[in-house]
């Protein structure tokens, strides 16, 4: 203590490694001067808060550069934008999953809920409903499913993975109940929404999905970093009892994160349907793993408490760029993606383990 209290008397000793970190953390930066950039960077890389996300950022840039060097036409703006276009649904899923994992929970139901949303959309649109009614209905239904899961976890103390497992079974089963085969979507408004390209100039364009995903990300960043609810999410991950003793609304927050995850899964399902323009009960199997992987690779600790939404977005982009490289490579088959994801998961989980153990 005295060492730290005396810090001003000993120039060159930063008061805490948190200084000078990315401003996204706990709001604007700490205002400390960077007396020792070298040790500052080292501290940043070994902090459980910033370390993994820094590694991810470096990884993303490295992979993108490697791709650019190896393949003609890889290093273009549109390739990057297509990462967003192709993965907008996964970004939204990862946002919801980030909330859940930050509290130390997990949501295994998201893939099945994506499929269910697609099935609901396709079947209702087929019977002539308007997209203006269908999409809100999906979002409400999936949020309610999330609410039920949250109540099961909080009130009945069911382990998150079991509760969300039940939700996964339910959602996947309902898919089959709706239809066992693929339903194509022909509703002109919906198709228009899905395929319309929004030009950005210079021959670049994005889709509506990207804009929706980015809005969700922006909202999530604000909620997590600037509202009491958001800080309580972090508090639960840091220590639920401490949060309770500090008078934070732990119970409500714990339920709400699953509602958010349900909502995000529903929205991701809609975006996924934009992408595929059909509903198919077997679709998006294993997508929950992609979402979890993106969140973990994005630097969120699986035990909760540390992590950023923007990190998860970065995680999705890493997965996306690996997929793109595999496409560009041509000779590599798509299953390599899964293996890469597994390896990355392993690396990041061990990294987390090392960083948190070092702190203890």
């Amino acid at each position: 203590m005295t060492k730290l209290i005396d810090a001003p008397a000993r120039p060159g000793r930063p008061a805490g490694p948190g200084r000078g970190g990315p401003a996204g953390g706990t709001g604007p930066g700490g205002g400390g001067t960077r007396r020792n950039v070298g040790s500052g960077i080292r501290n940043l890389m070994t902090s459980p808060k910033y370390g993994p996300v820094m590694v991810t950022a470096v990884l993303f840039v490295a992979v993108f550069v490697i791709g650019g060097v190896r393949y003609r036409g890889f290093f273009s703006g549109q390739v990057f934008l297509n990462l967003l276009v192709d993965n907008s649904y996964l970004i939204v899923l990862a946002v919801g999953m980030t909330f859940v994992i930050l509290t130390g929970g997990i949501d295994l139901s998201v893939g099945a809920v994506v499929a269910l949303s697609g099935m609901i959309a396709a079947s209702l649109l087929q019977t002539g409903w308007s997209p203006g009614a269908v999409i809100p209905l999906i979002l409400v239904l999936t949020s309610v499913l999330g609410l039920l899961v949250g109540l099961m976890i909080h009130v009945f103390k069911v382990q998150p993975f079991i509760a969300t497992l039940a939700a996964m079974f339910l959602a996947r089963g309902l898919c089959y109940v709706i239809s066992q085969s693929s339903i194509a979507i022909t509703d002109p408004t919906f198709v228009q929404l899905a395929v319309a390209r929004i030009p950005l100039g210079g021959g670049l364009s994005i889709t509506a999905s990207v804009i929706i995903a980015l809005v969700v990300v922006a909202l999530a960043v604000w909620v997590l970093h600037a509202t009491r609810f958001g800080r309580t999410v972090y508090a639960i991950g840091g220590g639920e009892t401490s949060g309770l003793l500090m008078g934070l609304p732990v119970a409500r927050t714990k339920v709400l994160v699953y509602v958010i995850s349900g909502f995000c899964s529903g929205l991701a399902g809609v975006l996924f349907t934009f992408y595929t323009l059909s509903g198919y009960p077997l679709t998006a199997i294993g997508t929950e793993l992609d979402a979890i992987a993106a969140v973990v690779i994005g630097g969120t600790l699986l035990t909760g408490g540390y992590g950023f939404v923007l990190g998860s977005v970065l995680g999705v982009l890493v997965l996306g760029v690996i997929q793109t490289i595999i496409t560009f490579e041509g000779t590599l088959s798509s299953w390599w993606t899964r293996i890469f994801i597994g390896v990355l998961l392993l690396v990041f989980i061990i990294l987390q383990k090392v960083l948190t153990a070092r702190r203890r």
Partner: protein
Amino acid sequence: MSALLARIVAHRLFWPVVMLVVLLVINLVAFPGFFTISVRDGHLFGSLIDILRNGAPTLIIAVGMTLVIATRGIDLSVGAVAAISGAVACSIILGSPEPGSLATVAVAVTVALVISLVLGVWNGFLVAVIGIQPIIATLILMTAGRGVAMLITEGQILTVNSPPFKFLGSGFWFGVPIAVIIAAVVFGVAALVTRRTALGMFIESVGINPEASRQSGVRARGLLVVVYTFCAFCAAIAGLILTANTAAADANNTGLFIELDAILAVVIGGTSLAGGRYSLLGTLVGALVIQTLVTTVYTVGIPPIATMVFKAAVVTVVCLLQSPTTAEAFSGFRRRLAIRAGKGAAAS
């Protein structure tokens, strides 16, 4: 008399068995010939035999899962391991000049099982040595495992034409389906080994109180590695049966969701997800409940594909019944009842 009844009701297998009986009765009502077992071509046939045969892979994995769960763990990777073992066996058989020879199949099966041991040690290593939470440690193999299986099958569905291999899945021995015999052997070996050696006691002891076990000199690390390895081994056996049954290795669909069925079987069987006391017999009943549920859905005429909705309902009900909140509510209710009864007795 009522004391005996109370003891039966309090038995941990009471509710699982009731569930099983209810399902069987529903079947009997919907399909009066349900319990008939006939002998055709020297083989046993009938709905009950089908339940046993189709439930065998789930049961085999659930046996391994029971031990893992008893140590406070979980293994999500069993489906992927099953897919890998099927893929390995089929690719070896396909690559051999004599796919139909017994030797080829023996080699294929052995290699597949040995690989599963490696995968199990890997899971155990991550959990016991590195100290990663089991759900996360096994998530890694769950994610990467199917990719590895795809790699082995090169993305194809490998169809093999090998009678000895097919025999594993759909053969009969003394009239009994081979799959059922294998499941019985796995179950028996697991029960015998854990109860005849000290393994069972150590598994429970580590699951109930890890620190007290450590201070008593129980080696938890080795124990965990063994348990995860055994679970992967079980998964591989199940994978081989599933693959042999269709004579095709499908990296995407072999053992899909089977980890969930296995966990469900364990939970229905009364082994708590919090670890500790386990019941292999309970797991057996649990696996039968699940398979009977699937069959019931068929016989009653609900689209078979909706089974998952019923499974969801079962998971939810079982979890809510096991929940401490429910237990509290129940005991509160009982206490009020008792108080009321006491007052009534005092008044009379």
